[in-house]
């Protein structure tokens, strides 16, 4: 799954077709996205300024923009936590995924494709099952706690589950393939001759990496961090299974307001705030990282 398209190649094969044909190709898919992505977001916007009309599940349009402010103040703790956990998980995933992608791209020889399959293979075991497995692995009876206790790294009273540590571990784990694949894709595209040229110009291995490989792989790093950060910031499963009441994230609040409290307007307002915050961050990040070609 390459998220970044190849900069060359694209330029010279494009047909300058004045006919309607490309639009015919686009129409069905874009219509679907319009009806089931744009239109729902518009509905969400409309819902976000409604107020409860007394009866459960009945809402009136009152253009109450204070919903945004009120819900944000109520959930500001969870909001900050979502972004903190997602940032930590993204950094951990990057630290694990970059060397992994590097090894697959440059050191795996004929095993390359098999290793790539192995990166996405855990997807096929439901992510819920794997998250629950983490709960067991980090749990009281699990090996990690036992090892850390025997080595006196943690005290006998410390537990690893139901903690922020477990939630961040779970997030980093769950989205690791989304980090690895784009980085791999951008590393794999590097022309080996540029690396040879760097060596010919007396750069040592580390300098070559720092001056050639790393900059050329930046598009993959940007795509990977986005594909990890965005779902992690909106996640509530890891916080539910691996966390405790003090590790609840924004997703937990939105979910509870939708299904338990049946307060759609503030849930919608919070969803909107989350989406806006993410889009602003993403725009800044892409500007800063200097890659426009993201799709």
């Amino acid at each position: 799954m390459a998220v970044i398209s190849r900069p060359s190649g694209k330029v010279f094969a494009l047909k300058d077709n004045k006919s309607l044909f490309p639009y015919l190709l686009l129409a069905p898919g874009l219509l679907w996205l319009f009806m089931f992505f744009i239109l729902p977001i518009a509905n969400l916007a409309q819902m976000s300024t409604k107020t409860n009309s007394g009866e459960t599940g009945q809402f009136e349009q009152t253009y109450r923009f204070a919903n945004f402010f009120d819900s944000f103040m109520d959930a500001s703790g969870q909001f900050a936590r979502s972004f903190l956990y997602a940032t930590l998980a993204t950094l951990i995933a990057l630290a694990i995924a970059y060397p992994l992608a590097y090894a697959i791209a440059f050191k795996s020889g004929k095993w390359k494709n098999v290793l790539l399959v192995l990166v996405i293979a855990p997807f096929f075991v439901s992510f819920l099952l794997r998250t629950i497995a983490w709960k067991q692995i980090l749990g009281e009876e699990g090996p990690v706690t036992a090892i850390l206790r025997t080595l006196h790294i943690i005290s006998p009273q410390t537990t690893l589950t139901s903690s922020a540590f477990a939630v961040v571990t779970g997030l980093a784990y769950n989205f690791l393939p989304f980090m690895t694949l784009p980085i791999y894709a951008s590393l794999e595209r590097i022309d080996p001759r540029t690396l040879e040229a760097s060596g010919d110009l007396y750069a040592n291995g580390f300098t070559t990496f720092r001056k050639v490989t790393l900059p050329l792989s930046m598009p993959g790093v940007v795509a990977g961090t986005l594909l990890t950060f965005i779902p992690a910031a909106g996640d509530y499963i890891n916080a539910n299974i691996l966390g405790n009441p003090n590790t609840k994230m924004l997703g937990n609040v939105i979910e509870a307001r939708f299904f338990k409290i049946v307060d759609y307007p503030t849930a919608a307002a919070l969803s909107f705030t989350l989406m806006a915050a993410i889009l602003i961050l993403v725009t800044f990040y892409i500007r800063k990282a200097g890659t426009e070609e993201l799709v």
Partner: protein
Amino acid sequence: MKRLTRWFSKNLIRIYAGLAFIYLFIPVLYTFIYSFNDSGKTNLIWKGFTFEKWSNPCGAPDICSALGNSFLIGFTSTFVSTVLGTLIAFALGRYKFRGRSTTNLLIFLPMATPEIVLGASLLTMFINFGFNTSLLTAIIAHVMFCISFVVVTVKARIASLDPRLEQAAMDLYANEWQTFRRVTFPLVLPGVAAAALLAFSLSFDDFIITNFTAGTVNTFPKFVYVAAGRGIPAQANVIGSAMFIIAVTVVILGQVLGNKRKSKVS
């Protein structure tokens, strides 16, 4: 000792990658091991080895109907999203047209939106229109979030094609349609297959959006999530492990067959 250090530093990156793979597979291994657990209702503590759950994977109530729904949603939405996404990818990869950047943005946005927002917005719309959430609304939602991933995957494949191959076909008097059918499409097909595989795995494993859009329809992830509260039957581990084994076998078989065909051609 010196040789050992040298070997170590030379293979540092491989060792690191090995550790990363161990990290990736520990939970998978755990799920697999506990599928043999002779457990009762909950499957948290090891009680002894048994094949019983593997011989009776549908033994837990509702598990197989939930699995059936997951397959139904997965196959339908994979098919629809692969067709729609591939068409878009061809338009983007092969033609210049007005509205290109808007199209690119529309493809990118669903991927940049957290699942909970996608699910919440769809549910809001279905409620506003008085549409009951069911299997159909779940499929609609899954197609929506799979399209972007299909477009991106197929587009990357189209962009990596050598344009000289198509030029050669044209030089040999193939018309545009023949070139597409005999040259372009077969070359893009592996990308389409990869996209379909990705779409299916995203759909099959989705919980958040399904939870918002499937109403009372149960899927395998929903079953696991609900069961997590009162203890997951070991049959869930059996199904998870079996899916893993089947998927890996299919992909590796495809790889081996593909390699064989490639070596025959060359």
